[in-house]
């Protein structure tokens, strides 16, 4: 891991080709929301964000060679929100200053097609042995109109499908970022229409046309409570980029203090032929000061369906312990069971103040980027929210 959100070769490969085309539209609408006479009086504005700094030392071993490195990443994230009676707008962006091994990894990723998301802007000269890199991107920029329960959202947004923690095959629109200390979700440029089906259920249509509408992803979804306690959804989609139809769904239910969840998506080529199944099963529970969760992920479509986890059998487990007031010790591991690859992270989080905390971590992984190498990393990260 080199930075919270930037610069790992092959990590952040967008499933949907990012296109900044909708972003300026959303920002313009955001500004209009304030400018409209009358609306401004009823709207509320908030500005918030966080400043995060991370520093680490890493050691790697590959065959007979071994080496050490260190790096740092400073990330500023700011979110501006406006909310009126029927209109809501949000603009969120982040900028990161990467140094040392973080910058080197970013440069290496930038040299690969799709290694860095196409919506990321970065300082020139990255590819020529840069020691520092300044990178920035827009996280979200959308306008949401709501009336009588109906809503239309346009712009860069996080369309959350699925119930999985590490994997959600049915999560068609949101790229997951595993480079940080916790799994993060990236926004995608989309138009989303939501229709309420009673107070607890909804139907929606989402279109993410990308730069070429023929290459976009389009989905219909129904979600809600079944039998009063089961939470689930059904999704049907067309993925133009892969030229395939996708059908899937997710479910979550509880048996006493055990919570179970599952996701499944089946992709069938438009021209016929056999399709591919991807599915996740997981559970989570707590006992005393411990919280335990685990997932199994079957990827029947290999690298074509999931370039980050191409193996057929994958597993995730996490255990956290509230060791003392404001202190949490957590262990998590991701593994490709077929290839014998894994990444394990031990973190100690100290909730230092109401608006900030300190996290130190140890991470060990093997087989990174398709090599036989081992990599160990020790780092510290502090965050201040405002």
């Amino acid at each position, binding site marked *: 891991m080199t930075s919270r959100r930037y610069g790992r070769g092959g990590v952040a490969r967008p499933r949907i080709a990012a296109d900044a085309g909708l972003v300026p539209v959303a920002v313009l609408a955001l500004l209009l929301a304030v400018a409209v006479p009358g609306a401004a009086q009823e709207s509320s504005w908030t500005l918030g964000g966080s400043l995060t700094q991370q520093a680490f030392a890493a050691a790697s071993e590959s065959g007979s060679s071994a080496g050490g490195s260190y790096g740092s990443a400073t990330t500023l994230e700011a979110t501006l*929100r406006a909310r009126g009676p029927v209109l809501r707008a949000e603009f969120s962006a982040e900028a990161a200053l990467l140094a040392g091994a973080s910058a080197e990894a970013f440069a290496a990723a930038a040299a690969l097609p799709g290694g860095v998301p196409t919506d990321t802007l970065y300082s020139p000269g990255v590819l020529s042995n840069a020691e520092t890199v300044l990178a920035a991107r827009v996280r*979200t920029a959308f306008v949401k109109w709501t009336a009588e329960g109906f*809503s239309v959202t346009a712009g860069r947004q996080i369309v959350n499908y699925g119930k999985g923690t590490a994997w959600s095959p049915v999560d068609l629109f949101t790229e997951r970022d595993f480079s940080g200390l916790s799994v993060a979700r990236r926004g995608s440029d989309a138009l989303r229409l939501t229709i309420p089906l009673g107070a607890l259920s909804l139907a929606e249509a989402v279109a993410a046309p990308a730069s070429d509408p023929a290459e976009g992803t389009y989905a219909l979804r129904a979600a809600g409570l079944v039998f009063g306690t089961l939470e689930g959804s059904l999704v049907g989609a067309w993925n133009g980029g892969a030229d395939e139809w996708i059908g899937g769904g997710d479910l*979550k239910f509880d048996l006493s203090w*055990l919570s179970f969840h599952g996701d499944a998506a089946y992709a069938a080529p438009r021209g016929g032929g056999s399709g591919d199944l991807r599915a996740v099963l997981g559970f989570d529970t*707590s006992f005393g000061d411990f919280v335990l969760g685990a997932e199994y992920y079957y990827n029947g479509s290999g690298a074509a369906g999931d370039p980050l986890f191409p193996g057929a059998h994958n597993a995730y487990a996490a255990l956290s312990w509230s060791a003392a007031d404001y202190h949490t010790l957590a262990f998590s591991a991701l593994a490709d069971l077929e290839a014998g690859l894994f990444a394990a992270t031990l973190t100690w989080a100290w909730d230092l103040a109401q608006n900030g905390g300190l996290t130190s971590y140890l991470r060990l992984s093997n087989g990174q980027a398709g090599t036989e190498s081992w990599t160990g990393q020790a780092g510290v990260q502090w965050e201040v929210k405002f």
Partner: protein
Amino acid sequence: MKRILIASMIALAASTAFGQSASEILRKVDDNQAFQSIEYTGRMEIVLGGETRVKTMKAWAVGDSKAFVEFTNPEDRGTRMLKLDKNLWMYFPKEQDTVKISGHLLREGMMGSDVSYEDAMESDALLEKYTASVLREESVEGRPAWVLELKATVPTASYDRRLVWVDKERYVSLKGEMYARSGRLLKESRSLEVRNVGGRWYPVRTEMVNKLRKDTRTVFVLEDLRLDARIPESRFSMAELTK
């Protein structure tokens, strides 16, 4: 036989405190705290290890089956909770994610406080889940009170047994103790301030102590309290949660 009869008479006398049965007292407490709707600005002061974390919020509720809370402190701004009957959801704005709080999550402290999501979900009407008897009379910070013992009658009650100190004049809970089936004391509550709101006495500053954790307490303060306020039905919907 005679001994049983005497014991029964004593129990009956204890349960009809000065002409009022424990159930009547509890009904008056329920009635006093029952509302058609409520709207308030709230503050949660979580004291842990000598440090205090403050969460502020706006909240709306209709009866005890519908509630909507939006946190307003900078760190949690935009985080919302929706309670509809026995279901509870939370919305996290940064991830634009809606999570149903169920199973083991219900036992967790709400936003790190001593109040669990399960506590938040429990109906305010104690008579629906407990039978009551009067144990004794005591004074709580100078105010005379009945001490009621409540025993759970339904498995969905959060606690097997509760003791409630009821203000004899204002029919407000001044103090409470919540016990597990094993007899272990789990939580303590105290009303730190009671105010007359629209002719009814209502606790506006309440302290909750989780006895399973050391050196921790949560003070819940209600400000700008409006009872029986008019709240649109659309407030309590998934659409509003993610608005």
